[in-house]
C-alpha cells in the first residue's frame, strides 16, 4: 500500500500537469466564451469539453513519462497501475465537485450575468447532485483512460500497434455510419439517447472505461521499459 501512495505522490509532484494546467486550459476556454457572451445573445457552449480533452492528453502523456521512470525506480507494475488509477480517481472526484460548484454559481448568477451556459448545460446537468457528479466524474475518467489505453497500446505494441488501432477504428466507424445511413436508423438512435438520462449514459461510459482499465492493465503487466 505504501508503494501505491508513493506512486500517487510521484504523480502529484508534477503539479503543473495534474493541478494547474487542466484549469488553465478550462479557464482560457471560459474566458473566451465570456468575451463572446458580452456580445449579447444567450450562448450554449461546449467549452467544458476542453478539460475532458485535456484528461485524454494527460492519459496519453503520463504513461510515456512516468511508467519508464517509476519502473526504473523499482515500482511494481501493479502498484504503478493502482497508484495511477487512484490519482485520476482523486483528481476526477475533486474536479467534478469544482465543476458542479461552478455550475451552481452559473445558474445563480444567470450565466455570469451574460446568459452564458458553460458549466451548467442542458441534459448533462439534469438530475440530483449525485447524478451530476457521477456524470462529470465519468467524463473525466473515461477520457483519461481512453488516453491511457492508447498510450499502453503504444508501449506494448509500438507505433505499428497504434496504426492498426486507428485503421481498425476508422473502418468500424465508416461501416457503422454507412449501415446506419442505409437502414435510415438515425431517428432510432436519437430517440434512444433522448430516452436515457445523462446519469444512465455515464453508467454506460463507466462500463466502457472499465474495459479500458482492464485492457491497459493487461498490457502494462508485460510492458517493458
Amino acid at each position, binding site marked *: 500500500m505504501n508503494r501505491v501512495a508513493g506512486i500517487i505522490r510521484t504523480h502529484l*509532484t508534477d503539479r503543473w500537469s495534474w493541478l494547474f494546467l487542466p484549469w488553465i486550459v478550462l479557464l482560457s476556454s471560459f474566458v473566451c466564451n465570456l468575451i463572446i457572451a458580452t456580445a449579447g445573445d444567450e450562448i450554449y457552449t461546449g467549452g467544458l469539453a476542453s478539460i475532458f480533452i485535456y484528461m485524454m492528453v494527460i492519459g496519453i502523456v503520463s504513461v510515456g513519462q512516468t511508467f519508464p*521512470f517509476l519502473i526504473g*525506480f523499482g515500482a511494481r507494475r501493479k502498484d504503478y497501475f493502482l497508484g495511477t488509477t487512484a490519482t485520476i480517481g482523486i483528481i476526477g472526484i475533486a474536479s467534478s465537485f469544482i465543476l458542479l460548484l461552478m455550475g451552481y454559481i452559473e445558474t445563480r448568477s444567470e450565466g455570469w450575468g451574460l446568459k452564458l451556459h458553460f458549466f451548467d448545460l442542458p441534459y448533462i446537468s439534469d438530475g440530483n447532485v449525485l447524478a451530476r457528479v457521477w456524470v462529470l466524474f465519468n467524463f473525466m475518467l473515461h477520457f483519461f483512460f481512453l488516453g491511457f489505453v492508447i498510450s499502453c497500446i503504444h508501449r506494448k505494441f509500438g507505433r505499428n500497434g497504434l496504426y492498426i488501432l486507428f485503421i481498425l477504428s476508422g473502418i468500424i466507424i465508416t461501416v457503422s455510419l454507412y449501415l446506419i445511413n442505409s437502414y435510415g436508423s438515425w431517428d432510432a438512435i436519437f430517440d434512444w439517447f433522448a430516452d436515457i438520462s445523462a446519469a444512465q449514459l455515464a453508467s454506460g461510459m463507466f462500463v466502457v472505461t472499465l474495459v479500458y482499465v482492464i485492457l491497459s492493465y493487461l498490457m502494462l503487466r508485460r510492458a517493458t521499459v
Partner: protein
Amino acid sequence: MSLAVEINGLSKSYGKVKAVDNVSFSLEEGKIYGLLGRNGAGKTTVMHMITAQLFATSGQLKVFGEEPYENDKVLSQICFIKESQKYPDNFRVADVLDVSRLFFPNWDREFADSLVQDFKLPLKRRVKKLSRGMLSSVGIIVGLASRAPLTIFDEPYLGLDAVARSLFYDRLLADYAEYPRTIVLSTHLIDEVSQLLEHVLVIDNGKLILNEESDALRGRACSVAGFASQVENFLEGKTVIHREPFAGLASATILGHLSAQDRKRASDLGLEITPVSLQQMIIYLTNGKIDGEAAIAR
C-alpha cells in the same frame, strides 16, 4: 555466503537474434562486481532482466532468493541506475530526490544533500534541461544515497569529466566501506574502475566469457615478442588471445601462467616476456574494439 543474484541459463532473444545467450552466474552479497564488455554485448539486457524490466526468453533468475517480477520485497532492495533512465519532463532535480525517498527504504537524505553539493547540481533546474554530465550525476546521487542492498550502475558517468568520475569512485568506496552492499558497475571504461572491482564478469556477444576474481586475473596474461618463427615455436600448446605480426617479428598474448620452465625456454629462444594489464587482456578477449569506443566516449 548468501547470494544477491543467481542466474542460470538465462537467454533473451529478439526474433533470431540472441541478445543474451545461456548466461549463468551468481553475485555474492557485499561485493563490488564489474560487468564488462563492449557496447551492445548484452550487459544492459542482463541488468534489465535482473530488475524485472525485461522478460527472459528462458532460464532462471533469482534476486535475494526470489523471482524479481512484481515482487515488492525484492524490487525495493534494488536500485538500478541506467544510462537511459527517463525522468518526467516537469521534474526538477529536487523532485527526483524527493521521490527517491518514497521508493528506496534505505534512502539517506543527508548523504544525498552532501552529494548534490559535491557534484554542484542545481536543485531547482528541470532534469530535462540538465547537461549530459549533470544527468549522470543525478543517477549517481540516487544510486549512492539509495543504499540499496543491490545497487547497479550501468555506464553511470557519460559526460562526466575526470574530476567528477574520481569523485564518484571516492564516494562510492567510502560509503561502501561504511555500508557494505552488492554493487555492480557495468562499463566499457575498464581501466578506470578495475581497481574498485573485487570480481569481474565479462560478456561478449551475449555470452559470459569470464567470471573471476579481478586480482586473480591480473598477471594471468602476458605477451611474448621476438622473431616470428621463435614466437610460433613457443606458442605451441598455449592459449593465444592476440597475435600481432610485424615484419619478421611477432608479438602474441597468452592466457595462463607461465611456468619457470616456460620462462627459461622463452629466454633461450631470445623472446621478451612482458605482463599484460587486466584491461588489455579483456580488450583482447573481446576482439580489441573496446579501446576505440572508450576513447570516443570520453
